[in-house]
């Protein structure tokens, strides 16, 4: 059983590594900001899966995994959701104000007068 748990943990760890790469690529290369926000969520999922692999490897005492990284992932998922919500609120407001949902549009330099 433990050898199986180990194989499965490594498999999901590798999946996490791949998702990190995919999410990162989406963030740095996609012009659409909404898509970049999804990219952040994929990157986050990959990171959490690495934690999950670490937790699964630490299975002991009749527990399916080390509870400490599992708890960290729960905290992390909630924080990632809050980040997504804030980013989307900003993006929606940006679109309402400027009619553009990208950074690529020629943005006027910020002025300080109100």
């Amino acid at each position, binding site marked *: 059983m433990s050898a199986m748990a180990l194989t499965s*943990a490594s498999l999901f760890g590798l999946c996490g590594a791949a998702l990190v790469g995919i999410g990162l690529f989406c963030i740095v290369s996609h012009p659409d900001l909404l898509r970049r926000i999804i990219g952040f969520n994929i990157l986050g999922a990959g990171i959490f899966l690495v934690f*999950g692999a670490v937790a699964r490897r630490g299975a002991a005492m009749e527990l399916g995994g080390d509870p400490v990284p599992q708890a960290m992932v729960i905290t992390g998922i909630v924080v990632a959701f809050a980040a*997504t919500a804030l980013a989307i609120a900003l993006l929606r407001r940006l679109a309402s104000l400027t009619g553009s949902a990208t950074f690529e549009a020629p943005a006027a330099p910020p002025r300080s007068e109100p």
Partner: protein
Amino acid sequence: MSLFWSISLLFDIALVAGLIALALHVVVTRDGRGAILAFIAFGLLLGIGWARLASVDVALTEAAIGGGLTGMLLLRAHAHLARHAAPPPPVAPEPRRWLVPAIACGLVTLALTAVVLAFPQPAPSLAHQAVASLETTGLGNPVTAVLLAYRAIDTLLEKIVLILALVGVWSLSRDAAWGGASQLQPAVVPEPLVFLARVLPPFGVLIAVYEVWVGADLPGGTFQAGTILAAMALLVMLAGLRPAPPTQARALRVMLAGGPALFVLVGFLGVAVAQGFLSYPEAIAKPLIVGIEAALTLSIAGTLALLVAGPPDRAPEP
């Protein structure tokens, strides 16, 4: 045994392949809405992945938040952008644009792969210590013990993070609408949605209460319950059965701040009657923790629902 082995390994491989394929689809597809739908499917699949990793607590959280609430946020944002923003200019897929980032990201993945495969054997684990200390907390679920006892300060401050995010989202409203309510109800509410919003919430509340209650000893707990309650609240507001509450309402604010405030109070109570900040007296540790969880559940539910609802856009009534 070996048959069972290879079947479950095959299942895991298929799951991982599905996850990676969906993620790739999100990146390459030109259809914005298709990308969001793929991401929602990704979240649900990921929930199964967590169950395969024997982390049922995480699986519940991921399925509820990653697939559910995030998906709703993204879909609403997509609809808003389609109305208010020019579609992003199509980018010519020149290799120059994506080759360098792709190579860099590939290197990150390779480095991670190397580390994941080289983790020490036997793996270090705090499972023993977490279980050994469970008795002092009166809990049976070690994940809940980590969240509310051993590393309680992480959980407490993460609640503050949620509140800050909400204050930040509210601060994005127009000056005139600040303190008002957000508009969730669409112009035409389909009849089946109203039906669902009438039938489902009682069950949702029941399930949430159950989750908090068993969370002390079994998988489940305040995050999962809070997310379910948030979903019920959103359903009711979407169907127009109840309007979204104005954000300046005192009762709402007390509910939002109540969970973390109680947490802080109990924390400092520990300085007086137990072994320091966020330490619980052993005799009443479990009731204290369940009480904090109950208050936190309400706060989380309110915060998550309002985060999805977004900045207020109707002026408050004087």
